[in-house]
């Protein structure tokens, strides 16, 4: 199983490049695709899912060009779009049966699979309720279930944990890790903790370009010894925000605990602390933004 992205670019309205010269090669495992809003994550997901075509470059799945022969990939694809809807008058089983039939899975195997999936996404008790009465989180779980209907070899999930409560989020992360063994999973998100919990590889995207493709461990290593924490009064917070790359600020009884990413100690009271993936991501994005600005 190999997904290859070669110099892919996408232009909208004839001038806005949402994606430019994007290249990546993926094998089995979970790739966490992270980037700020408008970085081009969803455009890339849509190209990989064959929902839209790249303006330039090509994507191949096991050597087959997905632009020319999209059905070769679609037969093995599970896709959860960022924004999707449901048919409000159908219940969960009927909706999944419909999509299963469209995906070429029908009869008894489909029903067995749907029962299993509804159990996995904790919707067994609500399976006979019309989807129009579902909450946002429940609809998201239906989306997750439909993406897994055909036991896909390539699973693309775009912001899958949006709208899920903390318990369901943890549940989904575990499910994703479980699924990753023998398939390619691409998880696009701006929630770094989701990537931290599941991804074996990471790709950071900004301004439509690939900033880095690495492992979470390697990205963490890049900021080792560069994350500092100290306590400041509330009144000094604005100045710290202005002067440093602020990763977190937590108000406590003794003042505001600020967490900063910097090459050198930002303050005499600052102490180095172990970095998180979020620190590394912010440092990576900020360095790219600075480079892009110059």
């Amino acid at each position, binding site marked *: 199983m190999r997904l290859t992205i070669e110099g892919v670019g996408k232009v909208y309205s004839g001038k806005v490049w949402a994606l430019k010269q994007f290249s990546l090669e993926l094998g089995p495992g979970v790739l966490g695709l992270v980037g700020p809003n408008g970085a081009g994550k969803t455009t890339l997901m849509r190209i990989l899912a064959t929902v839209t075509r790249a303006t330039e470059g090509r994507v191949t799945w096991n050597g087959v060009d997905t632009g020319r022969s999209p059905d070769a990939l679609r037969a093995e694809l599970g896709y959860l779009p960022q924004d999707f809807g449901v048919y409000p008058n159908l219940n969960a089983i009927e909706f999944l049966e*419909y*999509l299963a039939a*469209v995906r070429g899975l029908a009869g008894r195997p489909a029903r067995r699979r749907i029962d*299993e999936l509804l159990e996995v996404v904790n919707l067994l008790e609500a399976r006979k309720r*019309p989807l129009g009465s579902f909450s946002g989180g429940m609809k998201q779980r239906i989306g997750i279930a439909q993406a897994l209907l055909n036991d896909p070899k390539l699973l693309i999930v775009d912001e899958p944990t949006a709208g899920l409560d903390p318990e369901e989020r943890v549940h989904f992360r575990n499910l994703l890790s479980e699924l990753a063994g023998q398939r390619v999973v691409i998880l696009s998100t701006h929630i770094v903790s989701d990537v931290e919990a599941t991804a074996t590889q990471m790709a950071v995207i900004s301004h439509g370009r690939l900033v880095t493709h690495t492992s979470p461990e390697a990205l963490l290593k890049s900021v080792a010894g560069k994350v500092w924490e100290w306590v400041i009064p509330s009144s000094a917070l604005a100045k710290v925000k202005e002067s440093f790359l602020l990763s977190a600020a937590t108000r406590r009884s003794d003042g505001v605990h600020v967490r900063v990413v910097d090459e050198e100690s930002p303050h005499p009271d600052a102490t180095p602390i172990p970095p998180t993936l979020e620190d590394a991501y912010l440092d990576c994005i900020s360095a790219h933004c600075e480079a892009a600005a110059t």
Partner: protein
Amino acid sequence: MNTVRVLYHLARADFLERVRRYSFLLTLVGAVYLGYAVIVGDFGLSFAQYRGVNNSAWVGLQMAMSTALLLSLGGFYIVKNTVDRDLQTRVGQILATTPIGRLDYVLGKAFSNFAVLGAAMAVLAVAAALGQFWAGEDYRFKLWPLLHPFLLFALPVIAFVAALAVLFEVIPWLRGGFGNVVYFFLYMFLLVCGLETHTAFTDFVGIGAMESHLQIWLFAKLPDYRGGTAFGNSGEPVVKTFVWEGFGWSRELLSLRLYWIGVALVIVLLAAWLFDRFDPAGGFFRVRPISAEPSWWHLLARWRKRAATANARGNGVMNGAAARKPMVRLSPLNPAALRFRAAAVLLAELRLMLKRQRWWWYVVAAGLLIASLANPGQEGRRELLPWVWLWPILVWSAMGTREARHQTDELIFSAAHSLRRQFPAAWLAGVIVAALMGSGVALRLLLARDWAGLLGFAVGAVFISSLALAMGVWSGTGKLFEAVYIIWWYIGPVHHDRNLDFMFTSPQSLSWGVLRFYLLAAFLLFGIALLGRRRQIQA
């Protein structure tokens, strides 16, 4: 002042959103075509053997009447989407949290509707001016006589239509396709009453008022005029002309037309009173939310599946506590299970089409089926088939648009071979709905061994499904099909127009040539729909 500013910005934002869509461009193209048709005489106004010399007043009158007549029907379908768009885009949720009043909102939307239709009217007014020089009968250009009929006839019509479209949108059960059908019948009622009775209360297009005033003038000026008015080709040769310089100031005519602007204002007030501020639980019409409780449909399904459910419970599948287990492992899927079954997709499409209908829809459908079974072949086909095939109009109008409307397009288009598998199934489901609805008529035809009638029935079913799918895929909305289908239905099958009767309700329309035309059209439309869907998939 603040209210005026709010109204201005509401109407402006809505107007800009609309004029930047392709559909507005198409509206203007349609207006240009209408202008051309009037100039070349396709919509010519004549009084028996007479017509006016093409001076500013006459050209203005012809164009204004054509504008009033066509925008009163087509214009409604063009503008009836403004409140719905706020619902679909959820901008309405944001607006509901602002201090904007119900009247301000409704008035702003009505102004926007008015502006859109006004733009089309402006195009036609320019076309009228050009038309005068095109005709070349009188080169003296007079602005007021040319514009006067537009202000007198077209303006009240677009004000009325703009207000009525908003009223239909704030009433939940008139917001969708049902409202589109209801408007057609309301339009026909008002138009026919206006023409028959010449009363101000129903003559919103103003044809009766125009006819009365001109006929009085013609009787006084032309001794051999014996009455009669026609739009388009009347069959009588138009060989004489008269010079008409326009309407003078007539308090009666003015009050007749101002009456409709007053009606438009009353409609806006009514719409404001009924508007629920995007709260389905509030307002005059409380929308029944989709219940979390099982419906009668589900109860029936539950009864059917009781045995299977009990079995599942026995296996612990339904155990709620088990469902909350931290990790449930998915079994690998046997690749042999991934085998396409056309029947499964077809059944799924049929279920999707019919599931959204309420119980009373099935009751009426069953009533029509029984009535058509009870009627002998020829009578059933002639009188009942048009109604039998009008009833599922909203089922067909959802074809080709469902994926975009419910945002399931990415889920379906990313499935393998959806163009080859799902799309033909959707088309066939439309044909099956037509066949099922008309099965009473078909059975009667079969019993009567009316093979030509049966062939016509089959061609009609195929044509309807193809038309719905093509229009749905290319327009992205069911409104185009609803408007075109009902007008076509009224002219063709209801009035048994030989060439437009796609349901083949009379033996006259069952000629091989007409059958062949509709069969060919059905396949052509299916091809067009297929191209449209292909374009959507490969966006």
